[in-house]
């Protein structure tokens, strides 16, 4: 594959101000116009997203909106059938189309990813200590006593009590929450600049979900690592992220600071996602039930949300809404949000 690092970063100055934090001179990653298609059917239609160094960014949206595909494309974790184009700059490297030798160093090193099902991601026949040590050898060249000491430190950092004896446990001897902690330890082994957590707590119990989310937040703050947290649950994302991107049908439709998105959401989809979550206090109001489902293979003309949008007007089915800057760091793709001002 061609190494595309000849592309110069000047083109990034032309990026639409979208999914961009207010001040982000020094991003952890810059994704520009990322598209993905499977067998000629596009599922990602040009995603622009910048994650600042040390920033926690949430990505929300219903199943099938392209949250996972975005990050799997960046890390080249999609099957060969996927056609990927666009850019994903990690410093001076464009990861899209980069040589696999480059990607091997990046994956698990500068960027790490954890998933919903930790038991499935861990190797069932190896002790967890050995699996962490292997990641340390691979990404940092640590072996012997140094690797053993670092393994124990990582287990401590992710809150596994009694690390000295736990290193000898097999994944099946641990609970789902503990396995997820082990996955986080493996992810941290390469001292990543960016950790992408894809629905990391969906399969966990309530008190354990809170523990894991707050652990991720603490590690992000303590180490200065950037965190991308993917979830269909806006409340879980908002609880630990500085900024939130809302995805719909393969695009980011609204992005802004968590506070802005929760208090002054502009996109009807963001408002509907908020309304769908049962409130945790106050009167029990009727939930917003978004009719239907996200488009499957083919997008409707105009705004992709128009068939489900309660605010849709005739024009919505004609032209695709362009990004509009509502305020610094807050952007939205909606014709009406744009027309109202």
């Amino acid at each position, binding site marked *: 594959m061609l190494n595309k690092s000849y592309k110069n970063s000047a083109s990034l100055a032309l990026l639409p101000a979208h999914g961009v934090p207010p001040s982000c001179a020094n991003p952890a990653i810059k994704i520009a116009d990322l598209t993905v298609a499977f067998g000629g059917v596009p599922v990602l239609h040009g995603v622009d997203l910048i994650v600042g160094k040390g920033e926690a960014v949430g990505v929300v949206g219903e*199943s099938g909106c392209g949250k996972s595909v975005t990050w799997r494309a960046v890390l080249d974790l999609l099957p060969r059938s996927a056609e990927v184009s666009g850019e994903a700059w990690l410093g001076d490297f464009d990861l899209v189309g980069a040589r696999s030798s480059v990607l091997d160093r990046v994956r698990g090193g500068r960027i790490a990813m954890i998933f919903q099902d930790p038991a499935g991601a861990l190797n069932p026949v190896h002790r967890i200590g050995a699996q962490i040590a292997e990641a340390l050898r691979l990404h940092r060249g640590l072996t012997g006593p140094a690797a053993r000491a670092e393994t124990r430190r990582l287990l401590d950092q992710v809150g596994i009590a009694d690390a000295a004896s736990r290193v000898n446990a097999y994944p099946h001897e641990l609970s789902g929450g503990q396995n997820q902690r082990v996955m986080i330890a493996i992810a941290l082994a390469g001292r990543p600049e960016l950790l992408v957590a894809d629905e990391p707590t969906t399969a966990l119990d309530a*008190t354990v979900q809170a523990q894991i989310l707050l652990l991720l937040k603490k590690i992000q703050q303590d180490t200065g690592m950037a965190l991308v947290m993917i979830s269909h649950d806006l409340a879980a994302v908002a609880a630990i992220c500085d900024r939130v991107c809302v995805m719909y049908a393969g695009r980011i439709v609204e992005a802004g600071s968590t506070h802005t998105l929760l208090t002054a959401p502009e996109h009807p989809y963001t408002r509907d*996602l908020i309304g*769908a979550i*049962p409130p945790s206090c106050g009167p029990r109001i009727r939930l917003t*039930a*978004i009719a239907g489902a996200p488009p499957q293979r083919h997008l409707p003309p105009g705004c992709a949300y128009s068939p489900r949008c309660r605010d849709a007007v005739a024009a919505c089915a004609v032209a695709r809404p362009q990004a509009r800057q509502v305020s610094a760091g807050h952007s939205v793709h909606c014709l009406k949000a744009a027309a109202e001002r």
Partner: protein
Amino acid sequence: MTLLRLESVSRRFPVGSSILGSRKYLAAVDGVSLNVEAGQTTGIVGESGCGKSTTGRIALGLDSPDSGRVLFQGSLLPRIGSKEWRSQRRQMQLVFQDTLGALDRRMTVDALIAEPLEIHAVGDAASRRQRVWELLQAVGLGDDQHMLYPHQLSGGQRQRVVLARALAPKPSLLVCDEPVSALDVSVQAQIINLLVDLQRELGLGILFISHDLRIVRHVSDRIVVMYLGRVVEQGRADVIIDHPAHPYTQALVSAMPRLPGGFDQYVPLSGEPPSATDRPSGCPFNSRCPVAQDICRQSLPELLPLDSKREVACHRVRDR
């Protein structure tokens, strides 16, 4: 009117093999009492393995308790498998979490919804067809979906089929076991709204089981909080959530991500629920409880009224 009543129901399961010495048991459900009023919802909340599903199965007569009794409309549940039990079963239906494969994949939506009517021999063929059509409408499945197979439906649509099948024999009680846990929040909202509407229309009593306190709060009139097979707190939903008294309920409430607010009220709770096989002696929560004292390791706290609105099982609930 009390539709369903569980009185000190217990159920234990053998664990391991009995070859060496005496058989060990785990107490899946231990002395649970609760009520479901007609037209109202009682929610059961707690983390996995705390005995919610076992309680639900006992409530439906799908499993029998080792001790305690289950009363439906004031009379004891008939023996499992008896003729009376089968006719009673029409009155009480289970809505389970649909993971693909639970619905017969060779049957169309129509046939799946007609099946319980045929099993219970409801009406003649023509009236059954009419009833299937009504049920499709009631759960919001359109004309273009009734001939589809389960794998052609979305998760939300399959959950609607599960609901339609449960409603087919016109039950007065639904036991909903994690009915929306596998769904996206947006689809959860569709199904929850549907359930709330159907309850109002049909006057259903509902026993609603979930590990998600936000959803349980939203649908329930009364809430039962379980931990390792025991009820630790129960009472009026708003009181339990707004002023939880048991340390475990407090932890559960604080672990709900608030919108807005996030985890701003989070009370750190160490560890994870132990397995039911190694329940600590004394209070089952003592290994994780931030305020446990010696007495908590020695004796099991009883579920006692704290005020007129709820009952709590905690030695220290009055000192704090």
